[in-house]
C-alpha cells in the first residue's frame, strides 16, 4: 500500500444547539461522531450516505473550514487543527475543495479569470505577468475556452460553472481535493463529462480525492475505497469491489437496493427501509440504525456495535455482520 496522505482519527464535530433567553447550549447536533479513516496517496476515497449523515461536515472539517470538536486530522503527518493561521494559509494550496452548488460557489461579481487566478497571486505563487497565461492554460485543461476569461459566472451553465470550480482548485496544484457532491446538481449528460474530467485529472496530476456523494453508482464508478456513513458514524468501509460485491451492513444493503436501476425488465428484491432518518441531535441509543433496521434485535438497541475489521480490510459496525 502507498503512504497515507490524510489520516482522520476519531474525528468529532458537534454543532451546539442554543436555546433559552441567554442562548445557552442546550444540546449538540452530532454531525460527525467519532470517525476514523485513512486516505492513501493517489487514491479516491468515497464517502456515501444520506443527507444529514455528516459526510459534508467531514469534508469541511478535514480542510479546517470548520473547527473540530475532538479527534485529529493529519495531512502528511501534520495535524491541520494545530496549525497557526499563517501555517494553515501556507498549506491551503495543497488541499482544495470543489463544491456541490455550481451557483453559489462562484462570486457573481467576479470575472472567471480573476476568480481562478486570485489565489495564485495571493499566495505569491506566480508573477502577475504570467498569471493570465497560466489561467488560460487551466481553463483549457478543464474544458473551457480562453475567451471565458472575461466572463461573469451568470453567463455559464451549471456544468461549465463546475468546471470553473475545478479549475480554481486545480490551478494551485493541490495534492488533495475534496469533491463535495460535485455532480449532484448537474444533468445526467453533464455529470458524465465532469466525472470523466475528474478521472482524467487524477491520472494526469496524481491527485488524491475525497469524493463525497449520495449517489452510490457514481461513487462505485469513481472511487477505489468507499465508506458508508449513517448519522455521523461510519458503518462500513472497504475496497470498492469488496463493498459492492459483498456488502455486510444492512444499511449498505438497503441503500444499494434503493437505487433505481435503468432496466425495466429487472425485477429485484428490494429492501425498503421504514421510517425516516432520526435527528442527529438526538440519535438512537445502541446501534444508531436499529430504528430502521429490518434485522434489529434487543442487543442492537442497547449496545453500540464495535467498528471492526471483518477481514480483508473490510470494516463494519454491526453486531450481526
Amino acid at each position, binding site marked *: 500500500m502507498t503512504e497515507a496522505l490524510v489520516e482522520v482519527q476519531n474525528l468529532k464535530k458537534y454543532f451546539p444547539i442554543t436555546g433559552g433567553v441567554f442562548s445557552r447550549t442546550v444540546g449538540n447536533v452530532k454531525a460527525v461522531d467519532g470517525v476514523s479513516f485513512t486516505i492513501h496517496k493517489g487514491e479516491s476515497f468515497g464517502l456515501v450516505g444520506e443527507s444529514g449523515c455528516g459526510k459534508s461536515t467531514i469534508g*469541511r472539517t478535514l*480542510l479546517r*473550514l470548520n473547527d473540530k470538536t475532538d479527534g485529529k486530522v493529519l495531512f502528511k503527518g501534520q495535524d491541520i487543527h494545530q496549525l497557526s493561521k499563517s501555517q*494553515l*494559509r*501556507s498549506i*491551503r*494550496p495543497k488541499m*482544495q*475543495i470543489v*463544491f*456541490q*452548488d455550481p451557483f*453559489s*460557489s*462562484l*462570486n*457573481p*461579481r*467576479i*470575472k472567471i479569470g480573476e476568480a481562478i487566478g*486570485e*489565489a495564485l497571486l*495571493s*499566495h505569491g505563487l506566480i508573477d502577475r505577468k504570467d498569471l493570465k497565461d497560466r489561467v488560460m492554460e487551466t481553463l*483549457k*485543461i*478543464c*474544458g*473551457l*475556452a480562453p*475567451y*471565458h476569461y*472575461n*466572463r*461573469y459566472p*451568470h*453567463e455559464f451553465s451549471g456544468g*461549465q460553472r463546475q468546471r470553473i*470550480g475545478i479549475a*480554481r*482548485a486545480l490551478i*494551485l496544484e493541490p495534492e488533495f481535493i475534496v469533491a463535495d457532491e460535485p455532480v449532484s446538481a448537474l444533468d445526467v449528460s453533464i455529470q458524465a*463529462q465532469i466525472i470523466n*474530467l475528474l478521472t*482524467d*485529472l487524477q*491520472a*494526469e496530476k496524481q491527485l488524491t480525492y475525497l469524493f463525497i456523494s449520495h449517489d452510490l453508482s457514481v461513487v462505485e464508478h469513481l472511487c477505489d475505497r468507499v465508506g458508508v456513513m449513517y448519522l455521523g458514524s461510519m458503518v462500513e468501509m472497504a475496497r470498492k469491489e469488496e463493498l459492492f460485491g459483498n456488502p455486510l451492513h444492512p444499511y449498505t444493503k438497503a441503500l444499494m437496493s434503493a437505487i433505481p436501476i435503468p432496466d425495466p425488465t429487472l425485477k429485484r428484491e428490494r429492501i425498503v427501509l421504514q421510517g425516516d432518518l432520526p435527528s442527529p441531535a438526538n440519535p438512537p441509543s445502541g446501534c444508531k440504525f436499529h430504528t430502521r433496521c429490518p434485522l434489529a434485535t434487543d442487543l442492537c438497541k442497547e449496545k453500540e456495535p464495535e467498528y471492526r475489521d471483518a477481514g480483508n480490510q473490510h470494516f463494519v459496525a454491526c453486531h450481526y455482520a
Partner: protein
Amino acid sequence: MSLEAAPVEVNAQVPAKPVKADSPWRIAVRRFARNKLALAGLIIVILMFLICYIGPLLSPYNLYDYKLTDKNLAPNASHWLGTDKLGRDILLRTMLAGRISLAVGLVATIITVLVGATLGAVAGFYRGFVDTVIMRFADIFSSIPTLPILIIMGTVLSDLKVDPSNRIYFLMLMLGVLSWMGLARLVRSQILTLREQEFMLATDALGLKDNRKIFRHLLPNTIPIIIVSATLSVAGAILSESALSFLGIGVVPPTPSWGNMISAANNLIDFRKRPWLWVPPGMCILITVTAVNLIGDALRDALDPKMKK
C-alpha cells in the same frame, strides 16, 4: 497525455459567440433603463441639478440685491417668480436654495454610507464581540430621538452665533451621523448571509486574506443595497433639512434653502396673498424627493441580486 481529449470537447460545448462580457452592472443599467418612470425621475433630478448650479450664473440678479422698491412683487416679466419682502428675486433664491438643499442631501448621505457600510461590514465579517459592540452602538443611536437632538443642536449653534454659511456643514454632519444605523444593519445582515455562501467558503479554502475577502468579495455584493438605500436616504436628508430649516434651526437666513423659504408660509398674509413666496420651493422639494424615490425604487428592482431576466 490523457488530457488531450478535453480540448476536443471545447469546440462543441462553447457556442461560438464570444460577445462582450455582460457584467452584472450592465444588466442592471439595462433593466433600469426599461423603467420609464425611473428614467423620468433621473431626468428630473439631473435637470434640477443643472438648473440649480447653472441657473444662477445666468440670472441678472444677485443674492444680496435688496431692492425694497421691488418688494413683494407678483411674478412678472422681469421677476419670473416674483420677489420677496426684501425685493430679492424668488427664482434666483430658489435655485441657490436648491444648491444648498441638494448638497446637504448628498453630503449627509455620503457620510451615512461611509460610516454605515464600514461599520456594517466589519460587524458582519468579524461577528462576535466586534459585532456586539457595533450593533449596541447602533441601538443606542437609533433610540436617540432625532428631531429633538437636531433642534437642540440647532439652538446651540444659534446661541454660539455660528456663521450661517458654516452652519450647513454641521447640519450635514449631524444628519449623516444620526442616520447610519439603518444602512449598517442592512449591510451587516447582507454580509452575514453572504458569508454562508459557498463562494466565501471557497475563499477560506483558497487561503485568501481577510482584506481581500471583505473588499473584493463581500462589499461589491452589498453595493446594490448600498446604492438603493443611499438614494432613498438622499430624499430623506433633503426632507430633514427642509423641515429643520422651516423651523428656523437648520439653514438660517440669509443663506437660502428650500426649507427656510417655505417658512414664509408661516405668515398668514404671505400664505394667503403671496403664494409665489412658498409655492416654488415647496414644489421643488416635492418634485425632487418624488423623483429620487422613483429612482431608488427602480434601482431596487434593477439591482435585484437574483438577476431575474
